[in-house]
């Protein structure tokens, strides 16, 4: 079974995240970044499937130079090869354009049996790329999997909803997005770190994929961030001494903030 996993390089949530002042896009260059933690679950899910049988895991990312780190981490975990689509014209792309580039990249990689993604990125958190991508590739989209098994040409997932747990089947090839409940992503081992150095990573531009610069980027985006403001620093909390009326004061505070 050949699997493509889409991985995203995101600003580290532990670091100071911000936007570019010039065009209001996410600053990906001046902030420490990493492989989106939600995508680690997708990589792990793919590795488990391939280890249980045979085949290859290819990871693909769309992003600036530094996004190579996201590929490297996935290769260190055990993926077999990587594809890095980078092109200055991609800067500022929305989910629609991102899904277009990913779809063309996956077509060029070949026809995988499975495309696996995380359920959302930890920076954009829209969670729409998986279904857009499935639509573009003409694949069934089975999303939010918290369990995944593949048997022959059939994939079965469990999706835990608010009111029900569903079991969903799809015939392969299919696209599956996974949640953070599906597994415990492995740490790369030192052997994995060494092995990753020798694994192939291809770099493709938009031209390599037959995508026009005008189809992507900030100018083609359907949505745009008009303005941003840094969150005000947290104000000092208020300490109320309990003089027998602590409960009442607490209730008043919560009511004033419309929590109750």
């Amino acid at each position, binding site marked *: 079974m050949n699997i493509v996993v889409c991985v995203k390089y995101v600003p580290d949530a532990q670091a100071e995240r911000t936007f570019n002042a010039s065009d209001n896009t996410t600053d990906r260059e001046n902030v420490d970044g990493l492989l989106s933690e939600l995508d680690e679950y997708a990589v792990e899910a793919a590795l488990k499937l391939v280890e249980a049988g045979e085949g290859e895991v290819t990871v693909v990312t769309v992003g600036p130079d530094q996004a190579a780190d996201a590929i490297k981490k996935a290769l260190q975990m055990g993926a077999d090869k990587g594809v890095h689509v980078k092109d200055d014209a991609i800067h500022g792309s929305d989910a629609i354009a991102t899904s277009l580039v990913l779809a063309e990249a996956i077509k060029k990689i070949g026809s995988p049996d499975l495309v696996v993604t995380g359920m959302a990125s930890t920076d954009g958190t829209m969670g729409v790329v998986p279904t857009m991508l499935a639509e573009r590739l003409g694949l069934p989209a089975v999303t939010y999997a918290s369990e995944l098994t593949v048997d022959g040409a059939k994939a079965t997932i469990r999706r835990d909803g608010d009111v029900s747990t569903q079991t969903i089947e799809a015939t392969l090839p299919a696209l599956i997005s996974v949640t953070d409940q599906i597994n415990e992503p492995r740490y790369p081992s030192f052997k994995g770190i*060494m092995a990753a150095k020798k694994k192939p990573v291809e770099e493709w531009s938009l031209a390599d994929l037959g995508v026009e610069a005008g189809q992507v980027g900030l100018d083609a985006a359907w949505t745009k961030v008009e303005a941003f403001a840094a969150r005000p620093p947290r104000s000092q909390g208020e300490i109320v001494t309990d003089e027998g009326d602590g409960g009442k004061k607490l209730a008043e505070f919560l009511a004033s903030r419309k929590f109750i």
Partner: protein
Amino acid sequence: MPAARVLPTPEAADLIRLVREFATEELAPRAAEAEATGTFPREVFRQLGQLGLLGLPYPESEGGGGQPYEVYLQVLEELASVWASVAVGTSVHALSCFGLATRGTDEQRQRWLPDLLGGELLGAYCLSEPHAGSDPAAMTTRAVRDGDDYVITGAKAWTTHGGEADYYKVLARTSDDRGGISCFLVPADAEGLTADPPEHKMGLMGSTTATMRFDHVRVPAERRLGDEGEGLKIALAGLDAGRLGIAACATGLAQGALDRAVAYAEEREAFGRKIIEHEGLAFVLADMEAAVQSARAITLHAARLKDQGLPYSREASIAKLVATDNAMRVTTDAVQVLGGYGYTKDFPVERYMREAKVMQIFEGTNQIQRLVISRSLRKPAGAITVQK
């Protein structure tokens, strides 16, 4: 804030990132409780083995990581800044493999080394005895040749991982000359080998320390490492490397204490200001930082000598002396920075202080390090060498 580091290769930098991630996610949440309850974290060593962290300084061809000491020691440091017992255990394990890796025959290495370096098996080493610590040549444990076997009888004190390890590197007397000592690799399930109940220590409670008793333990001669009478030489060569390991553990421990102290000093207020804004306290922190960086510098200097294949015994002793004395001072000052809270078990710095103490004692007390250094001063040194 963790230490800034310069690594020789991209993969070494990734290795440090991996260790930091592992230490933060897997070690930090468990350390305090395991230390409070005296629980040896055997499964942590399995994880370390799977990650490839138990064989880093040994050749790749034998299942190790092929890393220079310069890199391996920085890994130990990172582990120690979060959990000293685990870092010490990693160093002891590496030391227990040293004799096999350096003096084992091809057959011995092929047979045992991969499982040891891969972390399937955990090692320990038995040099000290109840009445022979600083002076190991005074040991009385005997290995008597009997046909194709040796029969070992005696007691080995202070064995780190005693009762938990899968095999023991054992030094025992094979003749009555003072230096008539040989080295053996004894499996934990050998008949007649037992562990006393673990010592009740002041700190490092997550690392088991126990006396191992050898009651006519029969060991095939093929488990002897090196020649008969070569044991002390093997043990002492290993100790030079082990001292670097402890120097790195002490440096990491001190870094951990310093980080806690700085974070606290940024939060805590007195006289209407953060305590770090009081010069008297800020200068305590400055001295701590200077002590940690000096410890790291001398330790990595010694490591680079070793990596270059140059003599490093004197520098290893200096590193062990400086790094562990500095760690004692830095951890004591960390308690001071946290004031009354530092003296409670609700904060980890009192534990760091207790852990620092043993670093001045084991792997050669700091008096013994001074002995090694002072003796070395009477030998010619000062060669000018070009880096390889």
